[in-house]
């Protein structure tokens, strides 16, 4: 039991992965400029923006999340789509 817990805690995925980040709001020029090579898409009929793209590791992810925070977007969810 204990071992399992550690196994879960331990492995932070530090390899490249495709992430989906969902934000609240509508797409702006700043957002597009700041997200470099992520795909940016407004979800149909909603105020949710979906960013999908490959990130080399979680330092890159953290950088992106911080940037999104700096330009005042609410982050709804972060998901690894494919590792």
């Amino acid at each position, binding site marked *: 039991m204990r071992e399992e817990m*550690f196994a879960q*805690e*331990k492995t932070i995925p*530090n*390899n490249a992965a495709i992430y989906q980040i969902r934000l609240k709001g509508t797409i702006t020029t700043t957002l597009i400029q*700041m997200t*470099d*090579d992520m795909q940016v898409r407004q979800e149909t009929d909603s105020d949710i923006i979906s960013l999908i793209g490959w990130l*080399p*590791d*979680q*330092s*890159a*992810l*953290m*950088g*992106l999340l*911080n*940037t999104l925070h*700096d330009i005042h977007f609410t982050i709804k969810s972060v998901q690894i789509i494919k590792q």
Partner: protein
Amino acid sequence: MLHTKLNRPKISDDLLLRPHLIRKLEDSSHLPLILVSAPAGYGKSILISQWLEKHETKYCWLALNQAMSDSTLFLTYFIESLERCCAVNWADLKDLAQQYHFLAWETIIDLIINKINTFNEYARLILDDYHLIRNQEIHQLINAILKENINNFQLVLITRRDPPLQFRQLRLYQKLLEIRMHELRFNNNEIGELLKMKPTFNFSQDEVNELLFRAEGWIMGIRMMLLAKPAPYKEGRKGSLDYVTNDLDILIDHIGDNFSPEFFRQMQLCSLCEQFNKELIDSIFSFSLNESGGANNFLEQLIDSNLFLIPTGDECSWFRFHHLFGDVLKRRLKIKEPKLINPLYIHISSWFAGKGLIDEAIHYAILAENYNRAGNLIVEHTTSKFELGEWWVVKRWIENIPEEIRMSNIDLLLIELYFCQETYEVKEFSFLLDTLESVGVKNSSKKNQSLYLYHLGYYLTYISPNPEKALECLEQSKALYHDETGMFGGRRELITANTRQMLGRSTLALKLLNEHDKNFQYGSVMHMRSLHARIYVHLQSGNFKESEVESEKFHFIAKKGELKIMRAWSLYLLGNSAFQTANLDKASQSLREVISYDKVFNYRVYFDALAGLVLSHSLKGDAKEADSMQLTMEQISEKFKNPKFQTYARSVKARVNLHKGLGKMELEWAQMNWLNQVQGLYVFMMDVPELTKIRIIVNHGSILQVEEALCVLSEVEAFLNEVHNNYHTIEIELLKAMALVRIGRKEDAKASLNKALTLAEQNDNIRPIIEAHHIMPSLFDLVNQSPNFRRLLYRIGLNTSNSELPPVSNAASDELSLREQQVIQLIATGLRNKEIADELNISVVTVKSHLTHIYRKLDVPNRTSMLNKVKSMAIFS
């Protein structure tokens, strides 16, 4: 500026070399960017430092901190570090931090990139802790540099997380090396080697495996676990290394158990400083431990135990803890001794203040949340920074203080008003004045009340003119507090004289300035400000002869002095006065000199100097020079954030075209907002765009517009008269005359022209006449019948349509007297001296004397040259 920020962290010899990574870096040393991105404690900075130590390329290391997220502070350090890593002279970009407030950010980026492009040797700049930068402008700058593809320059960014830069292109074209966490992790072999280097670490293989498994190659965690090693076992928790990598606080307490409690506490105390040296440590120890001289031992032990100490200064004089380690130490201290923290921060602040490192002193006062202290430090050092012209440094200091504190601190609000005077943020000005009143400035110290009244006086003089009230404020201010600094007392005298003039009390203003002068040394700031004031009074009263004489005097004193700002002002005022008296060579010469003072003073005035220079050339008939200067002015204006600077350039262009007879082209521009006339914009500017618009309308607008222009001119005249501003009087009178001619009211036009010419002759304000003659020569046909005016026009070199001029007798000047003209006429008919003497009934000696005078006045050596010159001057047709 703390130069330790510009040092590469030194590496101690117990660090493991990582040849495969260093090779990788070396193989990529030609790429424009190396990005090292991983969380804290993965040995990023150490790796780069090890790499740099092995290679000879010129580089500079810039250790960023949170404060450098401010554009101006970043620019200061960035420029300094670029200068260190190349052999290019950066003198011209040293004041970009000040320029920042005026120039568009794109312009600043261009300036920097152009400079980097001139590097003739390979250079490398390392920006450490780039994640601390959260300022879009800075990212934009770095992006622009990367896009530029500069051959001779490499950036190395060390960061805990990826910055928002455009990596896609760089990745696509393989112009980027990324070193990330998975590569920075220490592998089994490396850990093995590390353990071998430290034979004191006694680990069983199982423990090593456990260590590796838990720490996942995180070197910081591994080293902390090694340092804490015996602890968990002491407590009988064998095998429980597992929790430690994510609970650094407990880990650090275990590390503490391995050292004496005194030593561990000393470490925690030092962790409050971002950087420390021996002297600072001693000071901290004597403050909080009541002991002195312990710094040496402490530092030795710290270095011996290799407790995440990073040397940052030259010759190992300054150190810091690894950020992560330092943060945990600090956190432990805050939990254990919360009451100690703020007093200690204040102590550190005083230590830095004592060393003259004011930025740091303010930073620690703010950390201590002692904003009073921070405010006092700012107030204390404001005057010296202002005298150096570095007001933007003070602006940065103030911006670090939370807004709600700033808005309730009278001292700081008063300082902020100076920034408004420098940047002309009109809205901000009245907001600050209101805020000051609401926070009770009127019940504060005499000095503060006096400063408030001074700023209010400034506001009521230039921004929302009400000279009567302004004078009242200024006089009260002076009565409350005596000051002899250039920025307060000196400026106050200047503005006071100005308001008196605005109230029509020029004579009194000048008299009081004379009395004021007696109290101050010749050439002192106060004396110069008073000369400055006198010229303002003359210029605004329209006494251009006097203003020219006084400006000469001011310039003579200022050019010997050290204050650049005074030199710049003296040249501008001299140029302006000479422009008005149509001494155009002198005007262009002085104003050209002003150009080199672009960073020193008032940009509105700077642009006016540029305008004056273009117009002087244009009026002299030097179209080529005028066009080239106009282009320069336009290019300069494009660099500015505020569009009003482009308007200044646009207006001058229109006026030059008007001189060339191309005014019609400018009609479209002139028709925009031309009815919107504001008094404050006029003062004593050589070019006022609003007035230039009227010039164009009067000459090229429809008849309806011309009639409207007459009304606008009367309005302008009225509001200028209200404040006794006579700088533009003749100009306006001439424009009225032109307008009246265009709508066929010749008699009224003639009256206006008569008035203008009379005034022009009285005040020596010749330039408007010359300009009007350029624009509408036929206007002067109206006064053709008046010998006096024809003489005036002739004297200033303007041809009237009738060639025969009444002879003029004016012995004192360089003009030929009646007798001399007769002598020339007779010589022209071929008579000799004796014959001339007979003809005029004078002696030969007298004829010779006349000739001597004529030669001197015409600057010729003999008769033949004299006759040639006379012919060319077409005096006798």
